[in-house]
């Protein structure tokens, strides 16, 4: 009886449980601060979603654990950094249009460069080791080292301050609740990307093939689709999402540094494990869980912030070993 209920209301139960969990801090935090923290958490979650969804799709469809994702993330941030430097006048201008122009240019440049990089990576390295998990991890780990060191060669080994377009700075004060402008932009970007990815996956033929590939790769190939072309494409899309995440995150944290990828890759892994391999919705929910809980706990018990995600991950793994959502959903 309970089994069937659990099965029928699977996703709803998960979402309800998560919602309850995140209303709980209301008891410990004053409502205004709670709102600020929630927005910060949502923004962080959306940024993590950008990174994690790429990892998740690549892992789900291609069965490749892409360790180089973090390095691609850092590349995205650095390409955006250079674009901002090139368009310095637009970034400094006190005009919403020019600011967004610079931002859009940075996004296009970062995503294009890193998508090409991802394609090269897939063609040259990853393709050689399909079907062998161990060598995939090893080879993408090697690629990470090379990519990060290339950043150090090209842009120098030190931290740099990331420019922020003028209108993105500052915050709004809505009924005494302080809302950072850029956080809202992050949330919008994340929601937009989620919508587009969901739309492509659910409504297009390409999405159908990708979803089918996640469930049964051999069958898709047997139906006559060029799965290798698909893999390269998905790898490029994943890399592009990582670049977008890197760019957005570097503006969020106001800095770029060569090693930035490894920290966020870690968060991405936790998100993917929580959400379930190969599930985009799972990535979103997992990312929001990680982002929100990090912010709440950082306010309530500062020293425990780093550990809370791992504890959540362990608890979820104990209850649902495959993560919250099933692949392909």
């Amino acid at each position: 009886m309970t089994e069937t209920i659990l099965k029928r209301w699977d996703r709803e139960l998960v979402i309800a449980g998560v919602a309850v969990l995140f209303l709980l801090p209301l008891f410990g935090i004053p409502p205004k601060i709670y709102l600020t923290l929630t927005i910060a958490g949502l923004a962080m979650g959306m940024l993590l979603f950008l990174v994690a969804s790429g990892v998740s799709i690549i892992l789900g469809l291609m069965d490749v654990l892409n360790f180089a994702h973090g390095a691609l993330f850092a590349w995205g941030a650095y390409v955006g950094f250079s674009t901002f430097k090139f368009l310095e006048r637009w970034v400094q201008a006190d005009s919403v249009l020019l600011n967004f122009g610079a931002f859009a240019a940075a996004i296009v440049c970062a995503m294009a460069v890193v998508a090409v990089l991802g394609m090269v990576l897939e063609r040259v390295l990853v393709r050689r080791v399909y079907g062998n998990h161990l060598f995939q991890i090893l080879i993408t780990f090697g690629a990470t080292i090379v990519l990060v060191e290339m950043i150090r060669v090209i842009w120098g080994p030190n931290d740099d301050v990331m420019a922020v377009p003028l209108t993105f700075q500052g915050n709004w004060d809505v009924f005494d609740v302080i809302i950072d402008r850029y956080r809202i932009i992050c949330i919008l970007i994340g929601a937009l990307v989620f919508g587009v990815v969901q739309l492509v996956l659910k409504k297009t033929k390409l999405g159908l093939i990708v979803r089918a590939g996640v469930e049964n790769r051999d069958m898709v190939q047997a139906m006559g689709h060029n799965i290798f072309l698909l893999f390269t494409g998905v790898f490029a899309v994943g890399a592009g999402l990582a670049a977008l995440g890197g760019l957005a995150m570097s503006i969020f944290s106001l800095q770029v540094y060569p090693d930035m990828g490894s920290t966020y890759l870690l968060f991405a892994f936790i998100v993917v494990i929580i959400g379930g391999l190969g599930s985009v919705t799972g990535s979103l929910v997992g990312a929001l869980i990680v982002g929100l809980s990090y912010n709440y706990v950082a306010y309530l018990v500062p020293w425990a912030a780093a550990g809370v995600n791992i504890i959540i991950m362990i608890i979820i793994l104990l209850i649902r070993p495959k993560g919250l959502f099933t692949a392909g959903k």
Partner: protein
Amino acid sequence: MADIAATEQTPVSMLRREQRKKRYYSIGIVLPCLVLAMFALIPFLSPSYKTLDLALKIIIFASLVASFDIMLGYTGILSFGHGMFFGIGAYCVAFLNGKYGDPTYFHLFLGLLLAVAVACVLALIVSLISLRVKAIFFAMITLALAELTIVLANKLSHFTGGEDGISISLPGIFSAAFNPGSFLGLDISGRVITYYFILLACLGLFALMLRFTHSPLGRVLQAIRDNTDRAEALGYKTFYFQTLSIVLGCTVAAMTGGLYAMWVGYVNPESTLEVMAIMLNVLLMVIIGGMGTLYGGIVGAAFLLITQTFLPDLQKIAIDLFPNASLLHTILERWLLLFGILFILVVIFFPKGVVGSAREFIARARGEAFFSS
């Protein structure tokens, strides 16, 4: 009695006996003995601190890499938390001999024991959580845990000493002040005694690991590595075997960490826990030496540590030779880039590593069929 005599005459047992006779003359036993003799003689040949330090680091890292190899090469499980277990071992020894206890033999022993116990429990927990789903999870979860450990070691500074770390003093004959005189022209000091102690301990660990991998249990692990489903179908509970291998690998890693702390006399998060740095070294060593060989650890550790020690000299030579090529200088400064490329090339073109390829070559030359083990 008759039964036993009869079984000894079976072709298999006769073959085994032949093999056992041959074994003592084979390269497989002579070479390790030579290497061991060399390490034992190093304090006599060149008693300078730099050589001793390099030799001992090679020994310790060879053991660490071998313990990693048990998981990676023999069981097919990739862990990114090996540096964490190494660091935990180092910290256990440091706690009992530096921060929370006086240096006594008992505390030293207790520290190593504590390292083993903590590593055992942690490895068990991690494998129980992660192995239920996919072996890939193990890599991801260990990476996350290792990062967490670094953060904790830095944040809980009143407990772990934070970034400043803990310095360790060693008891009695291991302490640097101990000096009973000289022997065969070698000044016997606490350092030299510590060197031999650690050499012996690592030898013991190595023997343990060799015994483990050459036992029937080790064969099962290799079967799991090569084809998990088939091993499961043959009736082996792959989960238990994988867990066992992980626990052993992590425990040995913690032991080597403790020994490392003894030698260096100082632990801090950067030197003993830094995931990427230590894991990168260990991975490079195991790949270059050869996965699934155990001895590969020695080759890999020797190659990498010697290269890293003499890298500044190499850079100097290169700069003297080509004083105008600024791009070359930048690339040489980023030696990790070269190591990264080397790593990828080895993984693609040379996946058996030095020892594995050498074994294959010897087997081919003898006209035997080659089975990697």
